[in-house]
């Protein structure tokens, strides 16, 4: 059963029909998970919920590890291979934000509902889905709600698990709430950093041209924007957020910039990082300000090639569901697998908007298609079809 890709693609409409019956369980999980705040490094309540759900679904070895991942294992009929299905449990919203979700007939709205409460809800519901749809699983599937993933977390939860799990992992499947059709199997090289600019206590504010931290940080930004970026390998510098000062009329004594350098080539990320370090040192020496560059997170580029069977199978499955694949590299959980040369995919579950804003919204109807896609991919990996083609 499900021994080749055609058979799996043919079964997708049946999966989709049967999944509609489980919609309310999934939505209930989404609401309960989504209303538990889980800022990075403070995910424990959400992790506890996931563990309870894993236990209730009959998963074994339900536990947390030292970094706070939620883990549960569905031992397969053959148990020859180990596969990880992971959704990051943390969100960008602080615990103090109002996490109330509201639900209408066609959509759910609220902080982090798409990134990544929906991913977690799918993870929590997946064991029950496999059971109700009566899909036989051969491999051991490790269900993981990963902790400390975003920002300064730097994928710490998943990296810890991959470093310390004793048996080989043959593949990874990463679930993101949005966007349906998203397909990632390569990772970009990436450096995420923060530049902080502080005026020293001894700074002479009476000296001519004393301007404060914001203007000095602006000088750093101008110089970063002057760094020449090649068209190939594709490379970008994203200036993500800026903070500084305290009021309208007080010269700012501190300011900070968060940025990310992304490139298809690892060497390019390193070169740009060196240039930014030079800029920081030069502006600091010219202005007398204390400017520091902190490296928050780094990724190495890599992944499976376009013609890898797993990538081809993923495209076939999406096409079979009339979803146009949108292939893009990722800097999320996928990178941790790629660092260890483990083939992995990241997929999205539904369509959404206002991502990472308090009115983040997801559509309900496409969710069942997103999960159908996930089931197809899980079967491809579970049956080891990609291994036979390698």
């Amino acid at each position, binding site marked *: 059963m499900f021994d080749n890709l055609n058979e799996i693609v043919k079964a997708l409409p049946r999966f989709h029909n049967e999944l509609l019956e489980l919609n*309310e*369980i999934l*939505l*209930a*999980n989404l*609401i*309960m998970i989504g*209303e538990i705040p889980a800022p990075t490094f403070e995910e424990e309540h959400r992790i506890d919920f996931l563990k309870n759900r894993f236990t*209730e679904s009959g998963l074994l070895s339900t536990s947390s590890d030292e970094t706070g991942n939620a883990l549960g294992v569905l031992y397969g009929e053959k148990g020859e291979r180990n596969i990880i299905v992971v959704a990051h449990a943390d969100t960008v919203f602080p615990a103090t934000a109002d996490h*109330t*979700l*509201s*639900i*209408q*007939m066609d959509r759910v709205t609220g902080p982090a509902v798409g990134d990544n409460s929906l991913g977690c809800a799918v993870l929590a519901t997946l064991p029950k889905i496999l059971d109700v749809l009566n899909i036989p699983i051969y491999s051991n599937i490790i269900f993981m709600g990963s902790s400390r993933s975003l920002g300064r977390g730097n994928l710490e939860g998943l990296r810890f698990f991959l470093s310390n799990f004793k048996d080989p992992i043959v593949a990874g499947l990463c679930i993101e709430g949005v966007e349906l059709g998203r397909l990632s199997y390569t990772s970009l090289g990436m450096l995420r950093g923060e530049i902080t600019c502080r005026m020293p206590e001894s700074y002479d504010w009476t000296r001519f041209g004393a301007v404060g931290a914001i203007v000095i940080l602006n000088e750093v930004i101008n110089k970063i924007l002057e760094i020449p970026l090649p068209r190939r390998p594709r490379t970008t510098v994203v200036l993500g957020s800026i903070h500084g000062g305290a009021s309208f009329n007080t010269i700012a004594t501190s300011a900070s910039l968060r940025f990310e350098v992304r490139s298809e080539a690892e060497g390019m990320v390193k070169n740009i990082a060196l240039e930014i370090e030079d800029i920081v040192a030069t502006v600091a020496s010219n202005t007398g300000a204390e400017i520091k560059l902190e490296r928050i997170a780094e990724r190495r580029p890599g992944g499976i090639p376009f013609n890898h069977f797993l990538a081809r199978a993923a495209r076939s499955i999406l096409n079979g569901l009339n979803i146009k694949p949108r292939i893009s590299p990722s800097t999320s959980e996928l990178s941790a697998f790629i660092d260890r040369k483990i083939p992995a995919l990241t997929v999205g579950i539904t369509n959404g908007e206002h991502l990472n804003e308090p009115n983040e919204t997801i559509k309900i109807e496409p969710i069942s298609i997103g999960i159908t896609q996930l089931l197809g991919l899980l079967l491809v990996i579970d049956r080891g079809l990609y291994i036979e083609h390698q």
Partner: protein
Amino acid sequence: MNINSWLKTNTFHHSNFKDIGAIVAEKQKQKTTVSLCIPTLNEEATIGKEIIILKSELMNQYPLLDEIAVIDSGSEDKTMQIAASFGAQVFLSKEILPELGEKKGKGENLWKAIYQLNGDIIVYIDADIKNIHPRFVYGLVAPLIFNPEIKYVKAFYDRPLAFSQGIRPSGGGRVTEILIRPLFSLFFPELTAIIQPLSGEYAVRRKVLECIPFPIGYGVETSHLIDVFNLYGLQAFAQTDLDKRVHRNQDTRSLGKMAFRILQTFIPRLARVGKIDRLPEMTNILRQFQAHDNYFEEVLFEIDEEERPPMLEIPEYKKKRSNR
């Protein structure tokens, strides 16, 4: 019955009942059925969420509820469509017992639920709870399932996020503390043990519901407490702390209307139990509450509202004024 001992034995926390499987097993053993009634009027923002959570967790996952029904007073928004789309039975209040006419009010919907629904236990949950969770139902049903003497379980919400000392004040909202608790302290002191007498979430045995009248408006909760107390005493009640409830806040003017309707139901009940013509000796004890970590106790305040006579009756005053 001593209030503090009742507080110890009949006041629960929802976490006491987190093993939902055990509640369901006991319920099935007793062959008891449970119905959930959600009275609504223009609640499209929250109704879908309530039904999804409660149906998925307490019907599909754990079969604690045998039916979920929305009884609507004639919403003009999409409340009824949303409720039906997520799998609740939806009834228009005026179409239940139509020969008895139509009255507008939450109490009307609660009363008609007794006729329309089939459960041996009926749980009432307001539709405006933003942070709905299965505990809102199992926390109220479980004391009835596990204790045959308990007939009426009321919710309360105690939510200290941080409190530096061991003791913290506890109690209800503005109408409770300003109107109900002083009234109960004067006329029904034992009922002051109910920490939030106006909470809209409660579970009750059908046998009790079918014996008591239902004011159609805001007076319904107060009247229930007085009527059930007169029939069965304090031991028929229990209350469960459901932690935090996030809902709409009402403005002071609306609370004034609420207080007025409560008094409309309260005063006739005083008359019915003979406390209007034969007023009891006026007590000077106000009963409020405080919590020690996880248990609650009443605090008695002796308040003497003494009176001074009109100044004209004071000789010194008269003497002083007569010189002018």
